[in-house]
């Protein structure tokens, strides 16, 4: 990265506001380091909305902080681990996901409508939003880029076994695959199977094994020694 170029662009950003000179537009190629055209447009929009009393910058900070530090897959993992160790909780979770996650402090009274889908040795559930990016934000946070991308959205619905194998999840032929297309305001969470050999683990240790990918249904939860991704 060329410092004088960065200084030039920062200066240009300050002076010209959202002006997109050829150089600034080119900065999209280096968006980690340079204020890109889109970053400048966003800054300009925020200052306009603050000036007009439509948003409060502190509220934006709070929202970003909530997703970066409070709402995320660790919350979903806690729900899954509780269901693994507490059969009565699991029953309540499968019967009424919304109420059961509220027991652990997630969601809200006027919150998301959640259905929980249980994976087993014979049934494998997989969640997709073919039209956009619906996802159980309340306990998984914001979806990863691949979940919102054209390759996943287009193929998960027609070739779930092929997509699963790209994630390293190869299912026996006799397993029943159920793909759930989140086309409306009903949200879905996959309850993965507990991995073998973890019977003695504490709820906290189990929660640490549960991945975001397993709660979307593209992966299984693996025992601690083999690791996993996501």
């Amino acid at each position: 990265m060329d410092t004088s170029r960065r200084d030039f662009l920062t200066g240009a950003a300050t002076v010209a506001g959202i002006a997109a000179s050829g150089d600034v537009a080119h900065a999209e190629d280096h968006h980690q380091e340079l204020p890109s055209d889109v970053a400048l447009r966003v800054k300009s929009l925020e200052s306009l909305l603050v000036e007009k009393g439509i948003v409060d910058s502190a509220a934006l900070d709070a929202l970003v902080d909530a997703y970066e530090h409070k709402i995320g897959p660790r919350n979903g993992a806690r729900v899954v681990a509780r269901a693994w160790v507490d059969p009565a909780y699991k029953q309540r979770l499968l019967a009424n996901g919304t109420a059961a996650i509220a027991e652990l402090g997630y969601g809200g009274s006027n919150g998301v409508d959640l259905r929980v889908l249980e994976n087993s040795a014979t049934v494998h559930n997989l969640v997709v939003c073919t039209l956009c990016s619906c996802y159980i934000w309340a306990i998984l946070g914001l979806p990863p880029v691949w979940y919102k991308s054209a390759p996943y959205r287009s193929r998960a619905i027609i070739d779930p076994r092929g997509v699963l194998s790209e994630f390293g999840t190869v299912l026996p032929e006799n397993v029943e695959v159920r793909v759930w297309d989140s086309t409306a305001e009903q949200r879905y969470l996959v309850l993965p199977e507990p991995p073998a050999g973890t019977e003695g683990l504490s709820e906290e240790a189990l929660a640490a094994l549960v991945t975001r990918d397993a709660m979307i249904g593209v992966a299984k939860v693996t025992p601690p020694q083999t690791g996993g991704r996501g």
Partner: protein
Amino acid sequence: MNGIHDMGGMQDMGPIKYENNEPVFHATWEGRVYAMSAAVTATRKLRLGLRPPIENLSAAEYLRMTYYELWLTSLTERLVASGLVTRAELESGRAAPGSTKAAVAVSPAGAVAAIFQVPARREESVTPRFQAGQPVRARNINPVTHTRLPRYARGRVGTIYRDHGVFGFMDTNAYGLSDKPQHLYSVRFSARELWGEQAAPQDSVFVDLYDDHLEHA
């Protein structure tokens, strides 16, 4: 609309690109776009849903833009369509001289609380048109407006798996038009009904569809 966003079943979109240890936002501006959208939505002053402006983009633009670029486009279109800002203000980055301050901004606590308030379920009592176990056909409709009935399901026969209850109808309320509260169902289609013999016989696809999307089969 039969747009590129309705991509379920397409096959030439390339490999899934997986990122290890993916950050919540890849750049500061992405977080600001997300947060502005959420905070403006929480004012309840928007008269247009998130998706219609995105679905109105050309296919080439839609595929070129990143997710939060799509959101930014949608946010500016929604602000203008809802009378909250003008295009001249968007271009200048300043409030028009003499324009009144809206004073509708929600507080930090209110904005975060709104994450969990998704007012989609309705309290109205509406008679369901279908019952669990009943065969249904997804209607063959091709509106040029927003719809939650994906193309791959249209004309196909499935079974009502579950009645989710009464929800606002997003095909119309995305435009601030009639909310048309009605039952939303999980409809189960066999994978072979949708994709033919290439699909495994025991596999199925569940789609959430409203009364207005369905007819008796």
